[in-house]
């Protein structure tokens, strides 16, 4: 994020508008009547009418680079070719932080897009403010036929705490670990199966200019793999950092131990920190053993490695109760300001995006996982799976993957966890850092 030296003088007017916007937002929150919207807000269960004439839908997304951008554009072109009455206008943001700001601004201005990518907590916020419509209002059912084909974890992720289907899947991935296999072999270390073995491997391979792993602890700009790592380790030891009701459990012994794990690695010189996917650059430069990232980062990891060594990709190691990989990626929502024809077109487009052939094409090009197992036998996917057997071995984790609970304060609490990691790695005790985060998150929950 960059700042500008000059400051517009019209901000006095803008301040007044801010006050008005906050007041309106507060009013909307009151009208919502609690988390995730009231049943009255969910609308009819009659399906959306069919598209009867030319209609344009806008799609706010963050697939702005590399294969993600080109593949999405290709899929949209193919959709428009088979649905000549529907035009899909993509509006790309550079990252999820910018996407959220843009969506909020558009909603506040009354010019929301037709559909948009959202994280679960954003969807909860939107549902609470009644600016999105439940998918059931478009599909005519809370359990559309296509839903049964999705991986269980993916399907479960689409519901908000009110039990209604508000989202539709789009780009889903899991946290995986990318290894420099040559380095593992040279140091006589096997692929770790548990977090303890992982720490040992990082320590054994550290030295001679190599730091086991480099992470981005995260910050106000959004969730990063560093923060997700902490969540995954706590969950793998049986204590997710959030309760089902979104209450923070940052001070559980397992959560504190997870931060202590990172601190110990840092003290042993086996963990470094950076920003902007530092693990990817370190791994590619042979300065790191491993990188913890989303499976959708595969395209970028390969770019960084460039064939310099063998890249091995695996699922996450296990904790005391098993492995717990976070499901990353976003879902789609439909905004209530769209016309009936736009909603119908949006539903047609969203269904198209989750068909098995389209998901196969999308997954093979981008590294995201298909949301349905039916894609695995699609010709577009079989060649990809043959080249990347790790996908087959990890994709079933979509059934049991962990996700952050869909509450509006969870986004903010993620930044508190990031701050705790940064504090811990800077010398604050793990217990103290997590306690500070716990208090901040509890306050955010209370104020929501």
């Amino acid at each position, binding site marked *: 994020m960059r700042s500008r030296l*000059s400051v517009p003088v019209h901000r006095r*007017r803008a301040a007044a508008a801010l006050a008005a916007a906050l007041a309106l937002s507060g009013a909307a929150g009151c009208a919502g009547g609690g988390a995730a919207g009231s049943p009255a807000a969910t609308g009819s269960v009659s399906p959306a009418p069919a598209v009867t004439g030319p209609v344009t839908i806008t799609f706010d997304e963050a697939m702005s680079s590399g294969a993600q951008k080109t593949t999405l554009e290709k899929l949209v072109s193919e959709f428009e070719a088979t649905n000549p009455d529907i035009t899909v206008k993509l509006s790309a*943001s*550079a990252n999820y932080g910018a996407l959220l*700001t843009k969506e909020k601004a558009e909603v506040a201005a009354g010019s929301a897009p037709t559909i948009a990518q959202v994280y679960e907590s954003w969807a909860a916020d939107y549902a609470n403010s009644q600016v999105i419509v439940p998918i059931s209002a478009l599909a005519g059912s809370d359990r559309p036929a296509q839903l049964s084909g999705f991986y269980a974890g993916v399907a479960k992720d689409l519901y908000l705490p009110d039990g209604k289907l508000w989202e539709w899947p789009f780009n889903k991935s899991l946290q995986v670990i990318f290894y420099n296999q040559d380095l593992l072999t040279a140091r006589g270390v096997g692929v770790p199966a548990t977090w303890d073995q992982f720490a040992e491997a990082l320590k054994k391979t550290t030295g001679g*200019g190599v730091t086991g792993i480099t992470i981005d602890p995260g910050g106000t700009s959004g969730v990063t793999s560093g923060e997700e790592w902490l969540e995954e380790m706590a969950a793998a030891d049986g204590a997710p950092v959030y309760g089902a009701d979104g209450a923070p459990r940052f001070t559980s012994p397992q959560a504190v131990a997870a931060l202590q794990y990172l601190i110990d690695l840092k003290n042993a010189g086996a963990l470094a920190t950076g920003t902007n996917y530092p693990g990817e650059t370190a791994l590619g430069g042979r300065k790191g053993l491993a990188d913890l990232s*989303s499976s959708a980062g595969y395209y970028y990891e390969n770019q960084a*490695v*460039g064939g310099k060594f063998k890249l091995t990709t695996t699922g996450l190691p296990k904790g005391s109760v098993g492995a717990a990989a976070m499901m990353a990626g976003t879902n789609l929502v439909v905004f209530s300001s769209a016309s009936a024809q736009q909603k119908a077109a949006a539903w047609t487009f969203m269904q198209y995006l989750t068909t098995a052939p389209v998901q196969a094409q999308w997954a093979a090009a981008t590294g995201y996982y298909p949301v349905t197992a039916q894609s695995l036998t699609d010709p577009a996917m079989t060649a990809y799976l043959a080249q990347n057997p790790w996908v087959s071995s990890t994709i079933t984790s979509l059934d049991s993957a962990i996700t952050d609970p869909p509450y509006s304060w969870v986004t903010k609490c993620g930044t508190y966890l990031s701050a705790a990691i940064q504090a811990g790695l800077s010398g604050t005790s793990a217990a103290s850092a997590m306690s500070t985060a716990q208090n901040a998150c509890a306050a955010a929950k209370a104020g929501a």
Partner: protein
Amino acid sequence: MTRIPATEARARRLAPRRGLGPRRGAARRHPVGSRRGWRWTRRGAAAVLGLCFAVPFYWTVVISLSRPGEFASYPPVLLPHWHWANWSRAWAAAPWPRLFLNTLLVASCTVALCLLTSVLAGFAFGVLRFRGRRLLMLLTLSVLMMPATVLIIPDYVLASDIRWIDTYWVQIVPWGASVFGIFLVRQFFLTMPQELLDAAALDGAGRIRVLRYVGVPMARPALVVIAINVFMASWNSFLWPEIMTRSGTGSSTVQPVEVGLASYAGTDGTDYSALAAAAAFTTLPVMVFFLVLQRQFIRGALSAAGGLRG
């Protein structure tokens, strides 16, 4: 003020170097060896300073022409491998000439508008006497305390109400007044001898004429500083155009270069080779432009600083 004829000034400057004029104590303070050493020291320092600016761009070009994976190599690749595929990939990804011209248009218009508003407001706050002048100035300065990002959503609402979203207007007009610029010009006028303005007024010049023919020429150093700062800020601006404009791949997009470049830092990684290629070919025109006109730039800057008069 007596103006020295150009030929005489040149003669005075050149005379000591040619040994044609007196140079009091020069030989005593700077023996020949010492002068040569000082000259080489200055040249060395200039070379190091030049490298500090040149190496990042050179490194960008090297990465942009590197083969897959080389951008992350250690030790780093120092010579380009002429892998032009990155350039063609980046060039095809966005309408770069359009984005570049958009940036140029927005930055130029913003500078022009900022100079106008800074001169007018700075003159009013620094020279004119009216009730509430101090309070108004304080109110203007208080704008600096509000971070721009805090107001971006209400700003978006305003822009949307007047149908400015996805236009050049929204990228230019809100930034057409700079508190920094107003303050700088005001300070300049406060330190300027009032007699100069009074003399012009006595000769019958109105306020605008005084500003045009006395104030603006005298404030030129401040205006150059404002112009450079505003131009750079506008050129580097990212979040504002990212939010206020919509992405487009056609010739109708109003987005600037920075937004196009940011798209390479994606949601799951960064495409460094393509990013470097795009950064290189969007920076090259500016560099060529500067190199061709560097004599004029330097003369203008020196002139503005009150040194040489061209």
